[in-house]
């Protein structure tokens, strides 16, 4: 059977319909986030105090699920993985951005997606947090001309770990699954240890 997905890239529908798809996918996304407890800043922050590692467990289960999904769909020839958009890699700004975002997570209690899930369920701190994102985005836009040299540094293009490491795609997928499973086991151990101590 010939490749048939991503559907949008094969022209099965246009821009207007893609916005409806966005809304429906968003509903699924928000529903899962709230189900997991990620509408609560305390539940999210607990990841960094080790007594509840749900952030790690949910995130890595989702990564493994979607990763195995695209891998198998690609293997049977239903999905052209080359047409799935990859954010270009710029190591410097992405390392610094991750660090700043991690600090912001502990200070504010949310990330952008979870803050939307939280404010939708009535949390005032999430609404204030979202206002902070607006303010931070405005400041970023204002200073962008001064920092854009750094933002666009280290351009590596759209590149995957198997390409950079020179390893087979399947081996890296398998390694991520193993790391995740060992991580789940370790996370549960840590939760019990920290929970028993306090």
């Amino acid at each position, binding site marked *: 059977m010939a490749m048939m997905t991503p559907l949008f890239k094969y022209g099965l529908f246009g821009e207007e319909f893609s916005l409806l798809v966005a809304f429906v996918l968003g509903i699924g996304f928000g529903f899962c986030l709230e189900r997991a407890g990620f*509408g609560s800043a305390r539940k999210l922050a607990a990841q960094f105090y080790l007594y509840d590692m749900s952030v790690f467990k949910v995130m890595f*289960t989702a990564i493994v699920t979607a990763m195995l999904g695209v891998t198998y769909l690609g293997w049977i020839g239903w999905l052209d993985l080359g047409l799935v958009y990859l954010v270009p890699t710029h190591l410097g700004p992405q390392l610094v951005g991750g660090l700043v975002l991690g600090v912001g997570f502990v200070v504010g209690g949310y990330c952008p997606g979870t803050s939307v899930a939280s404010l939708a369920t009535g949390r005032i701190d999430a609404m204030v947090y979202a206002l902070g994102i607006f303010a931070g985005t405005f400041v970023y836009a204002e200073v962008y001309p001064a920092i854009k040299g750094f933002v666009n540094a280290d351009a590596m293009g759209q590149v995957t770990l198997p390409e950079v490491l020179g390893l087979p795609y399947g081996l890296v997928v398998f390694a991520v699954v193993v790391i995740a499973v060992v991580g789940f086991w370790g996370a549960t151990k840590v939760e019990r240890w920290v929970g028993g101590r306090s």
Partner: protein
Amino acid sequence: MNPRPPSPYANPYLAGIGLGLVLLAAFVIMGRGLGASGAFSSTVSWLVNLVAPAHAQANEYMQQYLGDGSTHPLKAWLVFEVIGVAAGALLSGLLAGRAHIAIEKGPRVSSAVRLLCAFAGGMLMAFGAHLARGCTSGQALTGGALLNVGSWAFMIMVFVGGYAAAWFFRWQWR
């Protein structure tokens, strides 16, 4: 009104599989992943363009989100997705008895300080996400599943940053 006690949260692995399937659906249907921070960029660019159009249109960052003016800045994929996130979370929260007005904080911190931290955290988060070209959704989750090099580098640093800052903000949460 006497609200019923909230339902317990879902098993993290079940919620993760659900989230992963939504992400997989985005890859298969759209050829792109999920996101969140980009919707804030579109909204801010639109707002600034309303208040000070000349300023917004002269700004290199906001230009990317305003486009050539032929389409409305809010008519963007991530804006519609994030509206969906709010709707889906509200639906889940209502079904579980968890949707109510409150300030999430630990017992040792005042509401005013918590809200101040929330605002500051949001600002830091925005800055980090824009530097990294995406946040926990657009980079860690989406790029993680696609084995994107920058996404994995970003994700590791999110945990490093979070754990490095955790001790200093312990009073806010426990």
